[in-house]
């Protein structure tokens, strides 16, 4: 079974993040990491490969430095990678991004695509369904468990108060939450092996996507303004000396919560 994993390099959410002068996510800083949920997608793919055989290909779209994220996935155990890197893609919205990724999927042989349920930066959570709509594959998203049996995939789709069992025939596109597994750390051997693995770099032209359909100018949405939210400031902090709970209750009562 051949699996494609979608990963995205994002600014580290543990540090200050900002928009650039064009009101786009600033991706040029030094603090970029693999999207948090992407690691779970890579792990899910590796586990399925270990159980069913086949090959795991990582697919990403991003500037040249996204290679670091690609290398990490190869060190975890992915077999090869495709990196779409094109100046013209900067500022692409979700729709244009999905055009590029769908075009790349069209060149690859796959039975299953796995993505994180949402990215750590824009967090829209729409890419799997955008890609399913473009490729005609089944989409079973928000998984906390994936099973493949022959040509059939079964997914437990996580809900607020339970889960739905979804079944579909391959090819399929699934997305995963962090409830699905515990991602492995790259081993030293894996890190060494990653250096010899193939990373194919492609442009929009290579994929047959017209550059006028991607990038900031083609975006179907426009950010008009951005304002930093004033930081929350501390209110009243008391040290419990026997009646801290009563003081807290008095505050809650004054705010009409009790």
């Amino acid at each position, binding site marked *: 079974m051949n699996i494609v994993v979608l990963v995205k390099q994002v600014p580290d*959410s543990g540090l200050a*993040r*900002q928009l650039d002068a064009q009101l786009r996510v600033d991706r040029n800083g030094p603090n970029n990491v693999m999207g*948090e949920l992407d690691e779970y997608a890579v792990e899910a793919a590796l586990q399925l490969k270990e159980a069913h055989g086949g090959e795991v290909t990582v697919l990403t779209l991003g500037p040249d430095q996204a290679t670091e994220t690609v290398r990490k996935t190869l060190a975890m155990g992915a077999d090869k990678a495709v990196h779409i890197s094109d100046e013209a893609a900067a500022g692409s*919205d979700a*729709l244009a991004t999905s055009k590029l990724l769908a075009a790349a999927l069209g060149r690859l042989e796959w039975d299953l695509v796995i993505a994180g349920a949402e990215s*750590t930066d824009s*967090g829209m*959570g*729409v*890419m799997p*369904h*955008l890609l399913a*709509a*473009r490729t005609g*594959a089944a*989409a079973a*998203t928000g998984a*906390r468990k994936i099973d493949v049996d022959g040509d059939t995939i*079964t997914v437990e*789709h*996580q809900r*607020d*108060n*339970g*889960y*739905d*069992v*979804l*079944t579909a025939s391959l090819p*399929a596109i699934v997305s995963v939450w*962090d*409830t699905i597994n515990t991602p492995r750390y790259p081993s030293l051997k894996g890190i060494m092996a990653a250096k010899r693995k193939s990373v194919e770099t492609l442009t929009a032209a290579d994929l047959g996507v017209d550059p006028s359909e991607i990038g900031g100018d083609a975006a*179907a*949405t*426009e*950010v*008009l*303004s*951005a*304002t*930093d*939210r004033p930081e*929350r400031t*501390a*209110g*009243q*902090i*008391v*040290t*419990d000396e026997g*009646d*801290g*709970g*009563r003081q*807290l*209750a008095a505050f*809650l009562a004054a705010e009409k*919560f*009790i």
Partner: protein
Amino acid sequence: MADILVYVPESGKHAAEVLTLARSLGDVTAIAFDDQSTALASEYGAAKVYRVTADGVDDYFVEPKATILTDLARQAGPDAFLLPSTDEGKALAARLAVALDNGLLTDVTGLDAEGARQDIFAGATVTASKITKGFTLATVKAGATAAEPAPGEPAVEAVEVRVADADKRVRIAERVDEPAGDRPGLSEADVVVSGGRGVGSAEDFALIERVADALGGAVGASRAATDAGYYPHKFQVGQTGTTVSPQLYVAAGISGAIQHRAGMQTSKVIVAVNKDADAPIFGMADFGVVGDLFEVLPQVLEEAEKRK
């Protein structure tokens, strides 16, 4: 007046909020797949309801509804189409965007002539955006607005549809409910009471549950608490879990790592209880108690009981 389409799923409060927001923008036409949703649309001021009947629509994941919504959007030619920002709402919006080659905004927290507001970078920055291709297609985050009833008698138009075989790719074989008692859903709750590593064990989360029940709220947990197995993963509040924006957020035994703050910092009122006076959570709390949560919270329960 602008024409606003709204997808109304059965779940109550969030859909009522979207209908309320839609009303502030124009004449609302609701799309309902059951009687409960139709009733909700009437209560929250829809001028018109498409009451859709489609055999088997609930047996398949997303695609049948996406096709039906696409056809209705084509027919109605709305100025805006709003859906709740849920997994389903986002999936439907994504498919509408591709089918209609239309821009798409998700997790909108406000919408008016100035554009659509969104919280980005875990609420650190607020943006205003607009769609430049097509109509305003947006999913609206829970808590974006307060639901206000405006009962009316909308014109109900019955729409009968046959689910196409092409939309039967993903079958919903089983629905398994794991109810959290009578507690409200985490993303919709007005009050969320969360426990962190400081709770110390799965058994002691019972105290967090009791406080949540006393305040009529949902129970949440920090990533440290879910990773330690104190509470199920799906109740995690934070960057990788659920983002909540309740009227009141109670953080007990939670230090306030950015991972967690990302999921709750747009809460209206935040209170915190933590042994560690230097915990970052105190920097954002409206009221904080430096102390042992097992001393402080029982006292709160006692006082809440007295004030009933």
